């Protein structure tokens, strides 16, 4: 395969990069291209969810004064502004406006329209307040608008897919690259460095995580972001402590016994780790992880899906690097005396990443599936959030609510399908047999 920026030097293809070929091949697959467009559409829906489905008017006149509640509401959510006292506890649905302009869907996912509960279908009689619109695809048991819920659910579905796959990709690519490039023999370390590193692993863990354990638990109670910050501080400390043995080993290397080079079986270690994770049924693992959380939330579910879903990517990258590492240009880089890290991350890895896109596309599909199954089971999702899986599960309350059984599930199905189609399209586009 060709380098990312390397030019294909056959005469007629002069100036056409590998990426151009992939793009052209992908463009030939019309279904995949349409899936990609649909994905863009979903991204737009997710980004504009607050403006498309919101109970607050864009603009309103209330008791003779003009307000822009929707925009102010967003600012309040971001902590930039405060509500005017008259709106602090406003009941947006039942308020009497002099004049108001509403979003296309005049309900938020959490708006409880008590008059239209329980389970008012799209075709059944609905009592709609003046200025508000009909519930397009009905309401659920307590009168929440299903359409608004689905629009806001798009955001969560995409966030789950993208965030968890980012985590998975980071871990998977890193570990896969190490395992594929080094194998079991290539990582030659002096005995002294190995011993010191193992010894200091214990100290690094102690100072980074044990000593700071309470700072971290306290941050955990505050929420995910404070915890993440504390965790990163710990990680930094860990790396600082681990730097010590590697500096010391420069000296220790001089001692003949400690200077003797031994191979670290990187590949065996990482492959065993993959086997361990693959041996545990993913949904059960996530169930157990969520069970030990004090305050489970959708963010945690994303992180957990990401932390458990990297094995496929790692295997893929490993296989690619096993192939790439014996290519001539890598040998050339080695003979030029480049550092191993530079060879892996600057030279070997970029050439192996394009096929990983396939795994990522399929991975996003399965992450969305796992999340919707979890929220269908009612696990790890906060009560105030509406997700597709949760809406679908409400259909179980009453068989007459067919709209709850059909539409949220359709949304999951379509989203999963387009990611699968994009994955298929990429597979075809990257297949060397099809390339001219």
């Amino acid at each position, binding site marked *: 395969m060709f380098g990312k920026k390397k030019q294909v030097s056959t005469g007629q293809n002069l100036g056409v990069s590998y990426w151009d070929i992939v793009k052209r091949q992908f463009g030939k697959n019309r279904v995949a291209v349409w899936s990609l467009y649909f994905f863009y559409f979903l991204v737009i829906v997710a980004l504009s969810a607050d403006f498309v489905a919101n109970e607050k008017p864009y603009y309103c006149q209330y008791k003779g004064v003009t307000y822009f509640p929707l925009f102010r509401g967003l600012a309040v959510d971001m902590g930039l502004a405060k509500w005017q006292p008259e709106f602090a506890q406003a009941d947006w649905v039942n308020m009497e406006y002099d004049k108001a302009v509403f979003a296309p869907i005049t309900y938020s996912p959490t708006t409880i329209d008590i008059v239209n509960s329980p389970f008012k279908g799209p075709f059944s009689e609905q009592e709609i307040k003046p200025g508000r619109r009909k519930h397009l695809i009905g309401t659920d048991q307590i009168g929440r608008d299903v359409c608004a819920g689905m629009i806001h659910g798009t955001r969560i579905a995409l966030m789950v897919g993208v965030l968890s796959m980012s985590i998975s990709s980071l871990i998977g690519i890193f570990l896969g690259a190490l395992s594929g490039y080094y194998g079991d023999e290539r990582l030659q370390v002096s005995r002294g460095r190995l011993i010191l590193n193992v010894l200091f692993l214990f100290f690094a863990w102690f100072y980074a995580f044990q000593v700071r354990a309470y700072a971290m638990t306290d941050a955990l109670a505050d929420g995910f972001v404070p915890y993440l910050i504390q965790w990163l501080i710990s990680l930094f400390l860990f790396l600082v402590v681990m730097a010590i043995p590697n500096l010391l080993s420069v000296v220790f290397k001089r001692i003949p016994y400690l200077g003797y080079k031994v191979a670290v079986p990187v590949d065996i270690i990482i492959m*065993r780790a993959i086997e361990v994770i693959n*041996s545990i049924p993913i949904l059960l693992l996530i169930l*157990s992880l969520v*069970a*030990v959380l004090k305050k489970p939330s959708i963010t945690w579910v994303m992180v957990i899906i990401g932390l458990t879903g990297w094995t496929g990517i790692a295997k893929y990258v490993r296989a690619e690097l096993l192939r790439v590492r014996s290519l001539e240009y890598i040998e050339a880089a080695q003979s030029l005396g480049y550092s191993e890290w530079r060879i892996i991350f600057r030279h070997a890895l970029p050439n192996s990443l394009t096929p990983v896109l396939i795994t990522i596309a399929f991975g996003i599909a399965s992450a969305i599936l796992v999340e919707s199954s979890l929220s269908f089971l009612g696990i790890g999702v906060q009560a105030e959030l509406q997700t597709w899986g949760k809406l679908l599960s409400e*259909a179980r309350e009453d068989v007459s609510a067919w709209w709850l*059984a059909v539409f949220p599930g359709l949304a*999951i199905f379509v989203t999963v399908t387009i990611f699968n189609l994009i994955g298929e399209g990429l597979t075809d586009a990257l297949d060397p047999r099809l390339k001219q």
Partner: protein
Amino acid sequence: MFPYILKRVLYFIPTFIVISLITFLLSQMAPGDPVELKLKGGMQSANQQASDKLSGEKAYLELSEKYGRNLPAFYFSITSGAEPDTLYKITRKADRESLARLINMYGNWPLISAYYYSVQNLELAVLSMPDDQASFEARKTIRDNCNILYINYDDNEIENILKQTQALVDLSVTDSQQVVHKPLASISGTFGNVKNSYEKVKAEKRPSANLLPAFHWYGTGNQYHRWMFGDVPWFGPNTDITKHSKGFFRFDFGTSYVDDREVSSIIKDSLRWTLLLSFIIVLLEYLISIPSGVILAIRSNTLFDKVYTVFLFICYSLPVVWIGTLLITFLTSDYYGDKFNLFPPYGLGKVGDEFGFWEKVTDRSYHFVLPVFTITLGSFAYMSRQMRGSMLSVIRQDYIRTAFAKGLSPGKVYWKHAFRNSLLPIITIFSSLLPAMISGAVIIEYMFNIPGMGRVSYDAQVQRDYPVLFTILLFSAILTMLGNLLADILYVMVDPRISFNKKM
């Protein structure tokens, strides 16, 4: 082949150890104190006597022993240098955690433990005071304050509580004869102890002691060892009544926190439903997808192939939750017309001895139609696609052309020569099928209310019944590993070209 199988089995051991460690770590991280939850109520009666307090402690200790929670967690522990190796002997989880916090803040364990015992003395002193109407409220508040002190480590709050208690101890009551007396004067000395010891903890703090690591070795008397191997002797009668557990390897998985049932019996009851369902599903999947994949490959690039491939793709992308919900909504009730009331929505149907065997079998299969269909749809599509792909790649090979060239009939070429080699990928799928099956079982059994492993693990998750949840986790990991092993062995048997005796 035999050395290879032996090697695979040996690989099994470290993987199992790591998985059991992960499971154990999770169970240690689980929030809440099961012993406390179990004993809740009955502990805090208004008119408590010293004997009640002592018997409560005893009950707590007994239950901790039953759950094995009175033991250190693992073979060893790495703690801060200030922490004693006997901290686990404080059996109450909440107390232990707050003491650990205090150690983290002040670093002088002897003084902290003196403070802890002084609070205990205060509580006992209050409890053993004669019952006297005038001081009833004050005594109750002091007792409550003691309970707060046990689990508090925040300096401001402790100072507040101490101040409040001081006021109560100094309380003077004027009785009907206009005599002023202090009903709680007798415990002022004990309370003074609490105050002094706390002051001392703060005055002589050495938080730097926390910066040195300490390593403690506990031996086999620990929770992990007990969970895996049990504490009852393997041979001979059990003479120690404080020992209950036989351990994971002797199929004793502990008892449920919720209803005190043996976890092993819960699993035994639920496993058969999951196994039965899985067996039917795997059988159906292989029976349908292998022939359909082969036929698709033989007829590749015909219209039939194209339409069917699209159909398979759609089936493959269909979320199990959606199909199940749709089927339950539209096919299990009269709401959309009598014609659509085809299947029972959930459950197992007739259970019990009063029904005949065949009656049960027919009823059961009637109940299983929807769940089996729901879960088979997706994986059958996946497997058919795999089978088609692998058969296609085999058909394109030279030896197939040779077989045709020498005049063999197509049937013989496809089914005798190509088929066997195209089976390989299907066997590898088998190993990934098992974990997917167990994950799928959670959803299916929840949806159709089948009391299998998936349903039980869901219930355990919701009720935070950790012994059940973690046992199922470990158990399903073992099942998966066995499945992998089986797949590998089948792999060798089907394809004689593969020899694992070389380095893998």
